[in-house]
Every structure is written in C-alpha cells, then in structure tokens.
C-alpha cells in the first residue's frame, strides 16, 4: 500500500488557473490516479464503518476521515466521475449530491434486506449502509439517499470490496441483540440527550427518524420511499412517544 501513493496523493485545485490545463488533464487522465483515489475512498468508508461497538469512537478521527471522503467526492464530482442514478437527484446541483457526513456514518445493520430501515445513529459514529459502499465509478452510483434504502439490489456488482464488507457486517451483526430490543437499544440516545430535545432535532429530520447528534444528522432530502418507509414511520412514532413521555 505504501507504494500506491508515491508522495501523497496530489490533486489540483480548480482555482489553480495556469496549471489546470496540464495538471488536471494529467492527473485525471491517468487511470492509476483514479484508481488510487477510489481506493482511498473505499478505505475511508471502511474506516468509518469499523467503529468500536463498545466504546464511543474517536470523534476527531471520524471527522477527519469524513472530511477526507468529502474532499474526494468533491473532486470526483468536479471530474464528473461521481455519477448519480436516482432521478430525483437529477435536477440538483452537484454539491447537493455530496454525501453528507451523517450518511457516511450511518450504522451498519440492515444487510441482507432484513431490516431495510437503517438505524441512524446510536450516539456513535456508526458505519455505513452497504448501498453506499464506494462503487467504482464505472458502475452506477446511487444518490446517497436512495442508496440507504436499496440494500441488496446491486450487491452482485460490487465484487471484491463488497465481499470484505460482508465479512465486516457479519461480525457486526453477530453482536447485535434481537430485533425488538434492538429497535430501542440502538435508538439514538440523543433522544434522551437534552441537547437533542432542546434543539428540536428529535424526530424532525428528513430521514424519517431522528438522527443522533452524536452522529451526524441526516442529509438534505428525504429518502425515496419503498418498503422501508413504514418501518421508519414506526420507529419515528415510537421515538416520539418516548420523547413526549
């Protein structure tokens, strides 16, 4: 891995006028740069997933990794290699499609389509829903929001990376308790956090169920529906009951 980035991975800023021609073309054109960048993105996303389930993960580290992912996505968006599939995303400016930090840090739990509603945050910096795993640019990229809910459809496309992700998910899943208790134990504890209540974040986020203030809050747009919506509604409802009492 050490040889992969000879002297750190350089990228050109768009404002760097005189260098853009040669630089951007040069860096973009090399497939190795794209591959390197992609693998850095993959690595970063895996890092965000591999959180310690017992101890609260390091917020500084998570923020730094998330910022790195954002940087890569910004650049990929400018390069045009970050393609979005979902139709509702078509009209938006590229920046809107940037994955928000909260989505990057969603908890890993609903694989295999068992529980399509990803739990949004248990006060930790949780991992990533499989759908958001860094699909190589050659394949279809979903919008961040839709990817949350599409758990299994293009699993077959992901190849080797997904395989290792699956292993991670299996080990994580084996630690989680039964589903009903899980519903509440993994509910974001910020529901009980005075901060969350006071700032009105509880139950009001677009993702349908309140997100953690410990985790990052949800993305800008509501998720496209499907079967998860009813589950989300239930969770939201349950949470509202908890908060009101």
């Amino acid at each position: 891995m050490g040889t992969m980035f000879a002297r750190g991975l350089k990228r050109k800023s768009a404002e760097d006028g005189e260098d853009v021609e040669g630089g951007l073309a040069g860096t973009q054109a090399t497939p190795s740069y794209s591959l390197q960048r992609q693998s850095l993105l993959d690595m970063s996303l895996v890092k965000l997933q591999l959180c310690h389930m017992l101890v609260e993960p390091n917020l500084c580290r998570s923020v730094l990794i998330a910022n790195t992912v954002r940087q890569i996505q910004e650049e990929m968006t400018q390069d045009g290699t970050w393609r979005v599939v979902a139709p509702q995303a078509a009209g938006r400016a590229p920046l809107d499609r940037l994955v928000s930090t909260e989505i990057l840090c969603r908890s890993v739990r609903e694989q295999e389509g068992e529980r399509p509603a990803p739990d949004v945050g248990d006060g930790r910096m949780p991992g990533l829903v499989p759908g958001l795993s860094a699909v190589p640019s050659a394949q279809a990229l979903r919008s961040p929001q839709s990817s949350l809910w599409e758990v299994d459809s293009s699993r077959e496309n992901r190849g080797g990376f997904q395989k290792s992700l699956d292993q991670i998910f299996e080990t994580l899943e084996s630690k989680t308790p039964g589903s009903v208790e899980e519903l509440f134990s993994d509910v974001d504890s910020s529901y009980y956090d005075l901060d969350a209540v006071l700032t009105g974040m509880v139950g009001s986020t677009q993702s349908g169920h309140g997100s953690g203030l410990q985790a990052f809050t949800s993305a800008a747009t509501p998720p496209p529906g499907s079967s998860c919506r009813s589950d989300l509604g239930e969770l939201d409802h349950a949470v509202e009951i908890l908060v009101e009492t």
Partner: protein
Amino acid sequence: MLLSLPALHLQTSEYHPLFQLPHGRRGPWCSPSGSPAPLSSETGCGEGSWILVCRLLVPTQVSLLSMEEDIDTRKINNSFLRDHSYATEADIISTVEFNHTGELLATGDKGGRVVIFQREQESKNQVHRRGEYNVYSTFQSHEPEFDYLKSLEIEEKINKIRWLPQQNAAYFLLSTNDKTVKLWKVSERDKRPEGYNLKDEEGRLRDPATITTLRVPVLRPMDLMVEATPRRVFANAHTYHINSISVNSDYETYMSADDLRINLWNFEITNQSFNIVDIKPANMEELTEVITAAEFHPHHCNSFVYSSSKGTIRLCDMRASALCDRHSKFFEEPEDPSNRSFFSEIISSISDVKFSHSGRYIMTRDYLTVKVWDLNMENRPIETYQVHDYLRSKLCSLYENDCIFDKFECVWNGSDSVIMTGSYNNFFRMFDRNTKRDVTLEASRENSKPRAILKPRKVCVGGKRRKDEISVDSLDFSKKILHTAWHPSENIIAVAATNNLYIFQDKVN
C-alpha cells in the same frame, strides 16, 4: 548539538565526569554566567550527553501492594527494576507530568491508575543516586463505567494529569478520563495516635467495665504512609471526550476541554461549570472541525488557547464575553500548495498545544512537525521543526493502519530554549531553538544501560544505509512515544514508551 543549560544547579568548579574537561572552559554556547558543559548528543563525545537514570515499570500488582497499609510503599522501588513479564494493556502509560518543583512525577495509565514517583533526596553517601525517581504513591483514579443510555463503555484511561501548585504539606493533582475530572489529595502520614481510652490496639471497642484509667492518646511515629484521597469529582459536564485540562494561574479555576466544548470550573464547586467555548454546530451535519487541545496562559488568568483539527489555534480572552466563541487571535499558517494531498488536512490537525514558560510563545504539534508561534504574530509560526518528514511519502500506509491519527505531545524545557517531542520506533526528538540543532534519541531496553550515554539515532531516508542508521521501512510503528515531560528547572526528562517510563538526565548533573 549543544544545548545550553540553565544557570541553576551547576558549579563552575565541577569537572565533567566523563571527559575531564578543565573547568571554566567556555564556548560560544555557554550561558553568560559561564556555566560549563552544555549538552552534546551528536556522537556522544563532546561536553554533555543524556544518560538513562532509571527505567520504571508499572506492573499490575503494585496497586494491590500499596493498598496494604503496613507496607512501606518505598520498598516497592526494588521491584521496578526487575523485568516483569505480565505487563498488560492496562499498564500502557497515557500521560506523564512533573509537578511544579519537579520533585514529583505522575503517570496515568490505561487502567485508570495514577502512579506518583518522588525524586530521591540528595545524600552525601550516595551522590550518584540523586536524580532517581522512586514510587511514592499509587492509586486507582478512575474506574471503567458503563453508560446505560448509550450502551457504551466509558474508558477509565487517564487522559491527562495536571498538578496544582503546592500550598501546604499535601500535594494536589487533577486527573481526568473521557468524562470525569477528579481532584486528588496526596498526603503523608508518619505519625499515628496511640493509647486510646475506648479502643484497644486493634481498634476494637473495649468493654467499658474494664476501663479504669484515663489517658490521652499520644502521637507516635510510624512508617511513612502516603495516602491519596479524592477531594472533588467534577462529573457530567462533558458530552464528548475530554482531551485537555489546564489549571489557571489564579489557582482557583481550571478548564476542561472536549471535542466540541470547553468548560471552566471552580475547584470548590463540582455541580456547576461555565461553558466558555462551544463549537458544536446547530446542525451536526455541518461539523467539520473539533477541538484537540487547550491550555491557559501561564500568567494571564483571562487568556487561553485552543487548537483544532484543522491546524488552527485560537487565543481567547474571557474578559471579552462569557462565551468565548469569538477569538481574540487566530493563528493559522497558509497551506503550502506544493504539498497538497488528500492527507493535508489530517496531518495539519494539531495534537498538542503548549504555552512557553514565559507565556510569550505557543508550541503546536501536528503529525509531521512542531511549530513555535509568537503570540504577536498570527499569520505564520516563527519556527517549524520537522520531526519525521521521511513519513511524508508513507502517509497512505499510515492512514491505513491508523497511525496518522496518533496524537503526539510536545514539551518545553525549563528555559524555553529546547523543545521535545516523540516519534515512532521509541524515538524522541529534541530541538534546540537557539543553535537550531536537533537530536534523535531512543528509549528502549536494548539500547539503554543505566548511566550509559544515549547514542543519537538516525533514520536513513534512501539510498545507502550507514551502519548505525535505521531505514524508514524498518521502523516499528507500534512503538510510539506519545507522552514526554521535562523537569521544570533541570535537564531531566521522562519518556513514556508503552508501559515503560524512562527517566533521562543530562550527565553533567
């Protein structure tokens, strides 16, 4: 490399013990008073060097031994120099701090214990033993906790220890884990009352019918016992993990900083604290920066600094407003465009910030460098020192194995002329600000015999490796020196390497 010694503690009539230099010899590096023998550590020859004074281990059993009251804790000294094989992860030292006189040295570990070492007193019989530190007290400061609401453990690891200046016979220190700060009082007891009327020697109540005389208890000497008692517990004020604590120069308040907030406490009040900095965004989605370290100004009780994960430092004045979200000064170095990479932000994240003793400068540590800033100049540091620039080409690997997130600390010497910080492979580095020379030393069992002079180390970057050099690829990244401390007035340093505490001193002493 020649380091100027402070003018204290040196007698001009002293010969250098190793090289028999004539006294009174002066070079351009001598302090104006003519104190001889500055330090040199390039090849071990020259007028001064660092030697290992002692290596201390903190085996798990020590804390059990010290609980028994009839054991003189000083007897445990001898056990430290033996090689213990049961060092566990709980023994990993997580913080090191000298007190204000340098007489005491405190360490905290991952297991929540605090071990305090005391300097051996100078005696005529054993002059050479001066400078050694022996165990003075050991206690369990923090216990692991479980946050039931979040289903998360709260680690007992001691993140920071800070001493209070001594005001009476007892010693006071603050120790903190991720969530709770505690004030500990460490005091000696060397007398005990004997001859109670109502109790017998074991403390049991006597049968009143047997009491026929009246007597007053008398204080009799006993074996020295050092006890540590928690005097204050400052809890439930931090949602995020505490990374720094700092005692104010008014000695009445202190601050504790977590990732997003800084709180100001009064030592006497444990159920309230003032929030003086809050960088938590209303929408957590916008969070891109966290607080990484904070410290009060050494003389101005209204000023403090805090550093961020984006490589910036803010100086705040508490007189300006109750909530110091707006800084008085903002220190940031413009980015070097030629070095830009995806890792630029991560390696610019500041892991430690320290005021100089004079209060005029601040020193910051980021992943690859140490920087000294003048408080009067915000746009760039006045000095930058490369700690291990050979790692710049390895950033991707270091990102992969998470080493890029290691938080190294940095320290000033007593006269603010030398700065020190750690690196990998048990290396640590010293930079002389005056002569601009630097040295790399190693804290490891294999290379250090007691009283032997430390040999400077060198990392070979490319090409031919000379005999004593080590190549970058051979570095052991699991052996990292994150925590070091420098005696406030003498050239004695403490270096924590995993579960070992090394104490080095300048040989001239």
